[in-house]
């Protein structure tokens, strides 16, 4: 294969290895970079390379992009890995955006010393129960590691009934409109003999819920709990929940949160989000969300929940403008602010003042109790 020479001149291919081995090595590298490359995709990639030949690096790249990628996010990663794999003259190792270390598990303490309250309470069950009650109203940013674990367990059991919307399609029902079509068909099935009259009503479907979680520096104490809430909502049967993080940029997180185990899902989320504890450019992130996702249909008729403290580095008027746009496409806009439930809180931050006129609900979001309240509000939306 003459084509190998050309790739080789760019420094990419090892002559001692067979081309398919090299190409499969590339798919492995791509998988390691976070693209979901499955076996059949790799096979398709090899087949595509056989068709276009290896002579032209651009054609190999296109073949790879079309067979191994499944979305714009993948394309970006693909290009990075392709450059690094086939063109190793250009300074390796490359700096990658730092990811936070995986949370380590410590064992759950029986009960927290200061949480037990009544010193001589000998009944462990009652002590745990009162712990749970206290935990319900504690600010999640101030919890100790052990309390956070117990909180996580409770968040994973958060009760949520997904909101529903009416659809154009009808369901059979025992009263309501007469379903002429079904009645006639039933009657035809009996060779024209009169059949019981069928009725129908408008059907319902779960309404989409879109969560926009602020992961900027000022929210770092709450990001973990909020993502757990998002994870819980995602896994309630029948719920249609899409999650994004906003900060300095917008990240689609639904895929990462779709892992059933909350801990693994959070690790996956940590790998996906590039801007943990960065700055806040809420207005711009919202704009990107609306342009790339929201206006095209994701936010249309959906309940959109923004979980943010409204500390905006950028221009508050841009933020206000974007929330106004959001409200025009969404069914309901809910703003959750972790600081709202605290004593002496006044909505004076530039961002919050700007958006308040355009949101339907303004809720607190700092404790377990407020999260169940949020679920209530969402269910009724």
């Amino acid at each position, binding site marked *: 294969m003459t084509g190998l020479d050309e790739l080789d001149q760019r420094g990419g291919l090892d002559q001692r290895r067979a081309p398919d081995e090299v190409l499969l090595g590339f798919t492995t590298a791509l998988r390691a970079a976070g693209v*979901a490359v*499955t076996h*059949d*995709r790799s096979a*398709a990639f090899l*087949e*595509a390379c056989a*068709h*276009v030949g290896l002579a032209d690096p*651009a*054609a190999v*790249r*296109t*073949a790879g*992009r*079309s*067979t191994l*990628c*499944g*979305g*714009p996010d993948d*394309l970006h990663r693909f290009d990075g890995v392709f450059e690094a794999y086939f063109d190793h003259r250009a300074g390796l190792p490359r700096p990658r955006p730092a990811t936070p270390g995986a949370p380590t598990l410590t064992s759950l303490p029986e009960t927290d010393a200061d949480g037990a309250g009544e010193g001589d309470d000998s009944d462990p069950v009652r002590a745990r129960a009162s712990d749970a009650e206290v935990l319900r109203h504690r600010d999640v940013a101030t919890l100790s590691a052990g309390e956070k674990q117990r909180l996580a367990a409770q968040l994973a059991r958060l009760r949520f009934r997904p909101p529903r919307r009416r*659809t*154009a*399609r009808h369901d059979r029902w025992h009263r309501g409109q007469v379903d002429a079509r079904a009645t006639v068909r039933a009657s*035809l099935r009996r060779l024209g003999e009169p059949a019981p009259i069928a009725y129908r009503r408008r059907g319902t479907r779960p309404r989409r819920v879109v969560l926009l979680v602020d992961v900027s520096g000022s929210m770092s104490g709450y990001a973990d709990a909020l993502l757990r809430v998002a994870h819980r909502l995602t896994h309630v049967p029948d719920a249609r929940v899409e999650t994004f993080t906003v900060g300095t940029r917008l990240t*689609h997180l*639904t*895929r990462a949160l779709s892992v059933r185990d909350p801990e693994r899902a959070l690790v996956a989320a940590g790998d996906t989000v590039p801007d943990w504890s960065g700055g806040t450019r809420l207005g711009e992130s919202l*704009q990107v969300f*609306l*342009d*790339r*996702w929201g*206006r*095209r*249909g*994701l936010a249309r008729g959906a309940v959109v929940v923004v979980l943010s403290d409204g500390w905006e580095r950028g221009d508050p008027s841009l933020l206000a403008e974007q929330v106004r*746009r959001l409200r025009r496409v969404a069914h309901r806009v809910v703003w959750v602010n972790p600081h709202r439930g605290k004593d002496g809180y006044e909505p004076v931050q530039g961002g919050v003042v700007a958006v308040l006129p355009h949101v339907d609900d303004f809720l607190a979001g700092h404790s377990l109790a407020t999260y169940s309240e949020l679920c209530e509000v969402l269910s009724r939306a």
Partner: protein
Amino acid sequence: MQVESSAQVAEQLAATGYLCDESLATVVFLAGRMQRPLLLEGEPGTGKTALAEALAQVAGVPLLRLQCYEGIDASQALYDWDFPRQVLHLRALEAAGGLGGQGVEEAEKSLYDERFLLARPVLAALQQAPAVLLVDEVDRADDEFEAFLLEVLSTYQVSIPELGTVRAAEPPLVVLTSNRTRELHDALKRRCLYHWVDHPGLEREVEIVRTRLPEVSAALARQVVDVVQQLRGDTGLQKPPGVAETLDWSQALHHLGCAELDLETAARTLGALVKYREDADRVKHALDRLLTT
């Protein structure tokens, strides 16, 4: 479509007036060779649907178009029995002298004849193959429909209980388009060759305008594309204009007798370019600056 290389694909598509870049040509070439569906995603107005039309034209085969919408199901995509006609047929048999003894089975059989079958786009594409099947805006359909598509696209056959299996003599070239209002299922994506269609660069877009609208003057085409490209760079727009809008605007200006872009006519024809009031205001302000530099 018998082609030997991706360059040839690009050439043939260009002959129909569809100019594509090298990577899109390669993907189309691969789709033909590997007999896989083509999944096109990208901004609205970047020519995803037009590609399917051009492909059908190149190959000289019919284009079957299935527009997806929420609630679409198999009976709208595959086939349906023409129930009223079946009943009419029975009534006609009755009127013609009743159904005597052995005629009953015959009559029943005749109900499920091909002539009572309403072939919807997917079945039609299999029957008329070779053909191009365009499944437009597949993201609008429900998840269940995706699963159904997956089944058809992996075997290229459909079984109708009353008639038997319809198999395509030659798999049709399938083009799926999506505007990404929701993420498609991975299983469907894996079956397909994926391509993200981007806005074309300056030179290519000028070329597109010149090919599609030969009556528009070269100077006007360049100016229009220049403005449009700069507008796309402006992140403030709610809906940046696509190629379709560029063509619309060029045509509008041409009909008003423009040989060169001037501020006043441009302002009057903005409706062809941007579709939001806020955008129109923004562009009006920007036009002055864009036209002078």
